[in-house]
């Protein structure tokens, strides 16, 4: 560590890390385009100019991303000289920029827009015709490129070279004619393409799935955790006006995912937005399942569990630690078997983030003492049980219709699910919120705990599973009296 001064404040800085880190970590707002903490600095955009003084020498303006802190360095990020140099650089960057912010998806979270606004440069001096390039160039199934907006920071190029370690993009041609291109115009491949849309400091690379979907300032953003595999990447759930999830984006977390997430997780919000949700509860009346108050369904469950019959509890791997603990308590009180359904690895494993294990909370549930079994392993146990309780998001889907159908009609099947389903032994269906509608904790493969956030409201009369279990307890005073 070396001692340097940033804007009059003496701080300790790591001499092996670029100066820009010390500036950003200490509240100095230096703009960046080509620099990204997760990528090798190249120092090509030249925007992060700061004034540096060493010893008695007069201050000089340097790029903070390619300068390392040296003992005694005095850094002024707000000096007139630094501002002037950054403004000059900005003018060059804006010379051919199309300024189509009103129709640009990046507007509102665009570094170029923000910094232009900060520096107050509202008029351009260029009278030359602006460069006209491809506005909608498809780079595969995920990304669309707007060549006019691109400021050639090369973050996307470096991302593929350094993170998935398979170069797919390059800067083609020379000088101002440079454009971002894939090799031989082949579409991008792989599970990490979406990251370049996050990396892009302007609106050049956008997600096809997010194009014209929302203005970013209308999105409500909540910190959550991805549930697509046991990595549990830290994400941000972005919901448009309390209705649909429009985006999952990675949230920086050096312990789990760094700055990245995979496309499988990124685009998994279709499931969270799916319609046809189970509202309230449904109870079997003859051949039909009728909509009833939740308490009625809970009473039916209470009554079914009351006699000491053999019961089996099956949880979804999406259950949080809190839900697992509550279900475990209930199962123990009724001497019931409990396990969670754990689908086999899905073949998406790679050496970057995706673990290939579709159970996001495998570790959390296992640590509680709940074992993960495949649907095939669970099937014989369910056939023998008198009462079967399946609980959690997608649990019916993961068990499979065949396994559920195999439960004899004599047994009573109760389900806490997000979506309704049909099975001959089904007695009651009780709606629960999905992973963007409830809070809780999941523990990833490495034991890092990640939160779930209620980013949007659950459907009408749907309560969290933990809350439903508390309600169930409240409805069972007799059981407590009996055991006493």
């Amino acid at each position: 560590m070396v001692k340097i001064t940033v804007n009059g404040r003496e701080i300790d800085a790591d001499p092996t890390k670029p100066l820009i880190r010390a500036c950003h970590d200490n509240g100095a707002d230096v703009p960046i385009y080509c620099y990204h903490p997760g990528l090798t600095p190249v120092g090509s955009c030249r925007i992060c100019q700061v004034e540096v003084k060493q010893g008695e020498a007069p201050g000089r303006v340097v790029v903070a991303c390619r300068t390392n802190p040296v003992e005694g360095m005095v850094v002024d990020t707000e000096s007139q000289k630094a501002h002037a140099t950054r403004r000059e650089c900005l003018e060059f960057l804006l010379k051919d920029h199309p300024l189509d912010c009103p129709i640009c998806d990046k507007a509102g979270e665009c570094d170029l827009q923000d910094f232009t606004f900060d520096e107050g440069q509202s008029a351009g001096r260029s009278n030359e015709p602006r460069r006209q390039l491809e506005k909608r160039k498809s780079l595969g199934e995920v990304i669309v490129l707007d060549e006019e907006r691109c400021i050639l920071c090369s973050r996307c190029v470096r991302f593929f070279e350094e993170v998935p370690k398979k170069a797919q993009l390059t800067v083609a041609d020379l000088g101002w004619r440079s454009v971002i291109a894939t090799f031989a115009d082949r579409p991008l491949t792989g599970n990490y393409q979406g990251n370049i849309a996050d990396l892009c400091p302007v609106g050049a690379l956008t997600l096809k799935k997010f194009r014209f979907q929302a203005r970013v300032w209308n999105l409500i953003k909540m910190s959550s955790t991805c549930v697509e595999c046991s990595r549990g990447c830290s994400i941000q759930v972005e919901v448009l006006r309390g209705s649909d999830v429009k985006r999952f984006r990675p949230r920086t977390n050096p312990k789990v995912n760094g700055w990245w997430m995979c496309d499988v997780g990124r685009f998994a919000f279709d499931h969270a937005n799916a319609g046809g949700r189970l509202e309230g509860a449904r109870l079997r009346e003859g051949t039909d399942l009728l909509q009833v108050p939740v308490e009625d369904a809970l009473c039916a469950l209470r009554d079914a569990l009351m006699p000491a019959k053999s019961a089996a509890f099956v949880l979804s791997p999406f259950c949080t630690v809190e839900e697992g603990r509550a279900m475990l308590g209930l199962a123990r009180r009724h001497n019931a078997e409990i396990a969670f359904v754990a689908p086999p690895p899905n073949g998406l494993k790679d050496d970057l983030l995706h673990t290939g294990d579709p159970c996001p909370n495998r570790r959390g549930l296992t640590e509680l003492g709940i074992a993960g079994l495949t649907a095939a392993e669970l099937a014989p146990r369910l056939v023998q049980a008198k009462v079967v309780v399946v609980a959690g998001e997608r649990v019916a889907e993961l068990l499979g219709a065949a396994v559920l159908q195999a439960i004899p009609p004599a047994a009573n099947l109760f389900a806490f699910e997000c979506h309704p389903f049909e099975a001959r032994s089904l007695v009651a269906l009780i709606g629960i919120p999905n992973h963007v509608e409830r809070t809780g904790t999941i523990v990833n493969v490495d034991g890092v705990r990640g939160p779930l956030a209620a980013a949007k409201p659950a459907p009408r009369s749907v309560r969290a599973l933990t809350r439903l279990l508390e309600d169930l307890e409240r409805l069972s005073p007799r059981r407590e009296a009996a055991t006493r």
Partner: protein
Amino acid sequence: MKAFETYLLDRAKTEGNHQLATYRKLGGYKSLEKVLETGITPQQVVEETKKSGLRGRGGAGFSTGMKWSFMPDATKDPRPRYLAINADESEPGTCKDRVLMEKDPHGLIEGSLLSAYAIRAKAVYIYVRGEYRLSYDRVASAVREARAAGLVGKNIAGSDFSCEIFMHKGAGAYICGEETGLMESLEGKRGHPRQKPPFPAQSGLWQSPTTVNNVETVFNAPFIMERGAAWFAGIGTPNSKGNFLVGISGHVNKPGVYELPFGVTAHEILEEKAGGMWKGRKLKAWFPGGSSCALLRGSDVDVVLDHDSLKARGSSLGTAAMVMMDDHTSIARVMEVIARFYEHESCGQCSQCREGTQWLSQIFRRIAHGRGQPDDIATLESLALGMAPGKTICALSDAAAIPTLSAVKLFKDELIECIRQQRDPLASPAPKYASVGAH
């Protein structure tokens, strides 16, 4: 002009000197053999070169001995060390290395090997400009001849010194003549210059210590080792030593490459070597060292052609490529062509250079074609100041800004007149390429 001793181009005048036998007959490889046989250490070669005052002939004019001494201590640094010879001569106006490579390729090889010996390099890469086909062929065949004669490869001339020479042909990018761009290109990547530090001596080709020298620079090394640093330091002016090659072109009667000692004036070169301005016209403006240095007025032709004197006049020696322009020349047209060159050759990494070179070119094109606007001069000036000095990774941005600033300063009235009249009064014949964005 006083009489002076020549040495650089002496052998080149003999027919067939590109072949080993003739080169040997003219005293070739004597210097290398002397160094290898008499046990002169690499350190002594570096010291001798330092003492001689030799400065790089590639444009920057940095002390060659000093540059060599920046290489890390070979006893402490086990990495392989390389010498790269910059023969990617593509500065507009510069054509001196071509003469050396075509007429005296063995001289380049001998110089390269001596320099490689000085820095203990295990290999030399000669990066030849792609368009220089004859140069490439001559040097490549000279390397083959020299290798067959035991002068390249293992145990050169029976000594302990081993050094391989590899030839590399450029693909036409000016930016690959920038030393770090050249190294990137040699590594098989795009010729995008690298941010310095680290300097090539610390981390160059394949992250190993590397020195990049110009052809003419290393060409001087055998003469210094043969005749001594004192002899070399006796030629020239206080800070510019030895003979150098001047490539004089433009509106002169006898354009060409001439060998001259430092200390002669540009006027002497123009009149006594290049036969004066053509058609009896007057000199209006000139570049003393290729298109990347500041323009000078015709009246500045009395300047002594060396590093210090040109600096005092606000320009630089560059590659000593004098481009002379007569009084019928339109500065707007000149700058249009120069700016277009840099626009075309900017690698596109740095924002200032990528957009700035294009912008300068667009403005000069408009002025030269009668579409100038009143604020163009001020814009040109502030753009050039935004591009230089030292605001970008390499000096190409500076190279575009420097001539612009000098043109705006020295020939402001003429440019303003072009804008006022909405035509170029000196335009003749009409420029053929008028469309914007065409290349």
